[in-house]
């Protein structure tokens, strides 16, 4: 351990929900996107699932909203080291979408892509079993554009760069394929509890 002379850190109570190397951002919600925030109206938003599925298809805003509503209440963790406790997102569980498209047994990975063109890769297993959402509400309000509104992917058990803003679609593959940040040195999976920040962690 390399102790920094004179550094004590801010007085802290250990929060069991705080992964290693993270701090509590409190009411702040930093914005960290690489691109210009797209001007995307709900009426122009579409969401598609294709690749290794029995029935590829797309949903528009109203069709997606007709699916059973689902809420995530819990924490989120950004690789830039802030975490946010007790957030509340509203949307639809990805399981509702999986029921419709029926993934192939051969599908192992997913590339999530955004209306901005941003991409990120995930193991399919991280997007099933009630652990991932398409979210369009935050705290009961429409999700702000800078946070990915009208709709974003939400995978709260992984670092937040996996939760692609302005989500446009998911493509199922039988292999892993790095997305934007992953090609730029970030970890393929991004589990905050194992501090999988950069490739090689």
């Amino acid at each position, binding site marked *: *351990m*390399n*102790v*920094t*002379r*004179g*550094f*004590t*850190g*801010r007085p*802290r109570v250990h929060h069991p929900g705080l992964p*290693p*190397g993270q*701090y509590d951002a409190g009411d*702040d919600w*930093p*914005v*960290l*996107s*690489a*691109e*210009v*925030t797209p001007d995307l109206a709900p009426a122009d938003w579409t969401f*598609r699932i294709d*690749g290794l599925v029995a029935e590829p298809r797309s949903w528009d805003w109203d069709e997606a909203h007709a699916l059973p509503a689902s809420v995530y209440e819990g924490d989120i963790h950004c690789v*830039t*080291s*802030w975490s946010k406790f007790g957030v509340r997102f509203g949307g639809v569980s990805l399981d509702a979408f999986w029921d419709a498209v029926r993934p192939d047994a051969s599908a192992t990975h997913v*590339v999530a*892509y*955004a*209306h*901005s*063109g*941003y*991409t990120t890769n995930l193991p399919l297993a991280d997007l099933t079993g009630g652990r991932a959402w398409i979210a369009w509400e935050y705290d009961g309000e429409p999700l702000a554009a*800078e946070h990915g509104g009208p709709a974003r992917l939400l995978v709260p058990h992984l670092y937040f760069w996996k939760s692609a803003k302005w989500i*446009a*679609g998911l*493509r199922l*593959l*039988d*292999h892993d*394929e790095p997305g*934007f*940040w992953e*090609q*730029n*040195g970030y970890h393929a999976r991004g589990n905050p509890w194992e501090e999988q*920040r*950069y*490739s*090689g*962690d």
Partner: protein
Amino acid sequence: MTETTAPDTAFSPPTRFAVPGRIAVSNRTAALWQTATLTEIRRETPVVSTFRFAVPGWAGHLPGQHLMLRLTAGDGYTAQRHYSLASPPDDAGHIELTLDHVEGGEVSGWFHTEARPGDQVEVRGPLSGFFAWPGDRPALLIGAGSGVVPLMSMLRHHRRRALNVPLRLLVSARGPEELIYAAEYGAETTAVFTRRAPEGMPVGRLSAAHVARVVAERPTGGWEAYVCGSNAFAEHASRLLVAAGQPVDRIRIERFG
């Protein structure tokens, strides 16, 4: 190897990412924590200082890249934050960071009240190739506050290498005394003051006119725009760029949160 893993069958989304990464970063160096020894502290403004470090194993970086810095307390508690590299690449074994003293800030607070030459911290990087500028394309740089830090690395690189490719910098500060690196700007730079301006200069935020004037220069190959600062500033500046006709796929944004 099966056919589906061949590179030419790799998935490309129906939308293409507006800002492709430019530089492949070394995963090996990005994963490694290295000891950085503070060698010098230079005051830039009343609340901003530059910290120079010796990092003997530093693999080099490109202007615009950042690193992750970690401080460790006696009880094992660590705090880590991202900081842009202020120094140009040609500074063998040394790097410089410029830190704003954030009110109540844990890491910047330690730097501004406690740090002295000889102190050691840990860094990993350089990280992220996407905001990097190797000096190849005309660069239109827009920054506010400490957002000017990665842009200064680009400007210094441009000067040291005596590059011919056009470079313009629009930098916003609250007042002249808060303008970081004030003595280093030349004809390529336009400073904008939002609260207090020197005699004869207007007070006001970065405007459509400032941005349009530079965009209109239309250098050969087109501008690659780099915007850095708070999220609010990044939103404002990137909208002005789009309105002035700068293509969205030639705008790169680094938000300090």
